[in-house]
């Protein structure tokens, strides 16, 4: 153990208390072991935690949080550590509370279409548990084979199927929470409609700054009678974009609608090698429609017509599960495949109004040339959620700084055309300095008041979401920072 002199925390007795709660096996304290927890899916920020605690029950979480509260120690929740905005990035001298051992599905109630899970349950285990009975859990981030439901709740994660069915917040009915003072509360309920303030809605997307979710009641849906995936390829990306607008304009709401550009097509074909995506296409459009047999057949026909009208070179369709998965496989592997093309990649996550698509893509191309980094584009086209992947080499001195600047320019562009800083990956540590681009002083202050109610001592995931003068310099709003000095102690 390394003990930071300046804070003079004597960790040994504190670790002993954690061990009393979760057992010796539930605490990680060796320096080299702690190293593996120093970053999440975004590796450009790293900070080793002082201790890692792995509870198994709500009560253990509450006890662990109480120990932090008593000793004024900041803590950060972590699920699978796949977040892309540094949400689970530890802060100096913090305790990391990891939910990996809270992986029980507590209750399955098919009649009422709900499932109660612990936060460490992996997204696609939920579907796996109910698919035999003809149900599924709709939000499907590309990371669904590994990300935790707790992380999904904290980030309000989305996925390719969220165009029609909505993101995580639309599928969370109720939560059991451990608040930063260690108290256990239940919010929401097991039915979709509740009077009073929507505290569940407030918590979803709060990125671990309001407390930690220890039981989550999810809504599950009946699997559609018929599902069809269409893959259209285009020789220019604008045509793909125009098809998206036309499809939505015609009144069809596909379950999902995704575009990948040439660079990303080639990246995934190199790795996944399904041979589904033509390597010479400027863009591919993947559309999934689901519903009743007749409805799917009719929509499939109309979508194919719209794509052809916009100049699609070829259209492939698939109804059976195996081929559908094959068509999706490349899209789901797009980010990680970028890692195969270049030593490092940096994912951005901005949202734009659909109508601005071709303008924004052109601007991104201009930025790419200006900065001299290749950018691969994959996006949830239906809701205008862009994921530009900037390819770079971290071992080149100064590269990361330039890439972050480029990423920042893309975000500013999104906000300028009337969009948003984040679609689904959250603000975390990565984008907090851009918050003033989108929100006024008063907006930010209001949000901080909300946080203050749940997290008055600022111990839960400090330094995330809101700009801090120390890390954001000019960008941070001096006045609100002053007002919330106590919040930003760490």
């Amino acid at each position, binding site marked *: 153990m*390394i003990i930071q002199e300046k804070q003079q925390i004597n960790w040994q007795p504190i670790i002993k208390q954690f061990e009393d709660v979760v057992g010796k096996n539930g605490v*990680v304290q*060796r*320096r*080299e*072991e702690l*190293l*593996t*927890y*120093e*970053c*999440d*899916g975004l*590796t450009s920020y*790293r*900070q*080793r935690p002082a201790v*890692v605690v*792995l509870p198994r029950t709500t009560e253990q979480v509450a006890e662990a949080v109480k120990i932090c509260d008593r000793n004024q120690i900041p803590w950060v929740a972590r699920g*699978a*550590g*796949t977040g892309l905005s540094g949400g689970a990035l530890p802060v100096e001298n913090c305790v990391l509370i*990891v939910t*990996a*051992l809270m*992986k029980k599905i507590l209750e399955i109630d098919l009649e009422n279409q709900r499932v109660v899970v612990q936060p*460490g349950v*992996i997204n696609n285990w939920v579907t*796996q548990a109910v698919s035999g009975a003809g149900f599924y859990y709709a939000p499907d981030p590309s*990371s669904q*084979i*590994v*990300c935790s439901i707790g992380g999904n709740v904290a980030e309000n994660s989305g996925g390719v199927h969220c165009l029609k069915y909505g993101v995580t917040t639309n599928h969370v009915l109720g939560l059991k929470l451990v608040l930063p003072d260690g108290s256990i509360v239940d919010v929401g309920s097991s039915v979709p409609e509740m009077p009073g303030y929507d505290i569940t809605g407030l918590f979803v997307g709060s990125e671990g700054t309001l407390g930690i979710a220890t039981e989550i009641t999810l809504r599950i849906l009946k699997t559609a009678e018929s599902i069809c995936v269409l893959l259209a390829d285009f020789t220019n990306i604008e045509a793909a974009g125009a098809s998206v607008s036309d499809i939505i304009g015609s009144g069809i709401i596909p379950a999902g609608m995704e575009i990948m550009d040439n660079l990303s097509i080639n990246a995934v074909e190199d*790795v*996944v090698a399904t041979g589904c995506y033509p390597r010479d296409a400027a863009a591919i459009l993947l559309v999934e429609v689901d519903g009743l047999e007749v409805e799917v057949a009719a929509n499939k026909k109309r979508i194919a017509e719209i794509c052809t009208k916009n100049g699609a070179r070829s259209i492939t369709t698939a109804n059976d599960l195996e081929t559908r998965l094959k068509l999706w496989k490349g899209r789901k*592997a797009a*980010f*990680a*495949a*970028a*890692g*195969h093309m270049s*030593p*490092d*990649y940096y994912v951005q996550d901005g949202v734009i109004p659909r109508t601005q698509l071709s303008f924004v893509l052109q601007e991104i191309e201009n930025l790419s040339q200006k900065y001299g980094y290749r950018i691969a584009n994959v996006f949830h086209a239906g809701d205008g959620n862009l994921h530009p992947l900037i390819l770079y080499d*971290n071992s080149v001195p100064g590269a990361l700084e330039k890439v972050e600047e480029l990423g920042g320019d893309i975000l500013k562009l999104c906000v300028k055309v009337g969009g948003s800083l984040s679609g689904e990956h959250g603000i975390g540590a990565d984008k907090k300095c851009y918050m003033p681009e989108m929100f006024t002083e008063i907006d930010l202050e209001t949000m901080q008041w909300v946080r203050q109610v749940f997290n008055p001592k600022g111990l839960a995931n400090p330094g995330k979401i809101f700009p801090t003068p120390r890390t954001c310099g000019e960008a941070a709003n001096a006045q609100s920072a002053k007002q919330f000095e106590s919040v930003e102690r760490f």
Partner: protein
Amino acid sequence: MQISEKPGINSDNLGGFDANHPPDPKLIDTCVHCGFCLSTCPSYRVIGKEMDSPRGRIYLMDAINEGEAPLGEGTVQHFDSCLGCLACVTTCPSGVQYDKLIAATRPQIERNYSRSLPDKLVRQLIFNLFPYPNRLRVLLAPLLIYQKLGFPKFFRATGLLKQISPRLGAMESILPNVTLKAFRDTLPEVIPAEGKKRYRVGVILGCVQRLFFSKVNDATVRVLTANGCEVVIPKSQGCCAALPEHQGQKEQAQALARQMIDSFEGTGVDFVIINAAGCGHTLKEYAHILEDDPNYREKAKEFAGKVKDAQEFLALVGLTTKLSPLTDGELTLVYQDACHLLHGQKISVQPRQLLRQIPGVKLREPIDAALCCGSAGVYNMLQPEVADELGQQKVDNLLNTGAELIASANPGCTLQISKHLQLQGKEVPIMHPMELLDYSIRGVKLYE
């Protein structure tokens, strides 16, 4: 990689890797830290800690390379907890070659880290015993007596061995029943093909397979000859080297590989057939194992090119025999994917395709088919707690399919699953696909 702080005092002031093939930083750099490999990793699924996941282990290798972490107890235990199942290689969308990384790490540990005395002794016992069929045979006599006298019941009931050492307890608990047949090799050196000869193939018997599952070898040979293969079984063949290779005993592995290549020299076989998944994976790696040996490098490449898993081979050349049903009605089967077939050799379709050809067979698919059963070579002897949890889960998942019979193509998996079936008081038979094919070819019903 930049690690946030200056190297501090290592908790056990030990050195790092030596210069002889440390894990390659270039391979490490292909990892983008996405975490996709976490939930398919059996050790992470049980232990739940980042250090016991592929992503965490790669992080530790990097830290040791960079001098940020020592090669000491705090890191070695997490390399030891890896089952070597290679599920992470299948899952990784960035194409990280974890198999190469862990294969480079294990010999480094053996050379540069001194294990505790009990750990050393157990390992020595295993490495000096299992790869040598003749030594194992010497042990069989007392084992037979031990089993006949009813000691196993005594030990299992009282948990005595387990209390003395969980590892010895684990070793005892997976021992299969010994039959007298295990005391000799009964197969001749050359067995002619039935009907028109299509191929001349070599067969490798495997150490554990030949002693404890000699009937699987017999079945394999019958299936091959029935399908037009002349079978050659050189008497001089020994262990394939899988065991020492997986645990980083590099020199021992190389010596065994050379012996194996020599024993097939001049036999003129078209293919070398193996029916045990773990052995097959290692045999196909010979070119890599002997890459630094100028005398064997080329021979190893040629040999490895001829190696085929029995099911892979039969699916490739096609069955020419007539197949009869195994039971009067339908037979529901679940096929257990051995990691060294599924992840190590990318073989998953072929065994299923062969089994489906047997009339009346209905194949079921279990949840987490790609997750290791916890056997993983000698893992269940070295890390019994993790192995037990995986074994239980595997048996639950297999039985939840409602299958009447389990088909398993690897002796390690078969031992592990049998043990956990027995612990759960379940009496579902478990057989090698080659045995099922053999029954079907000979028109013998299963329950006669």
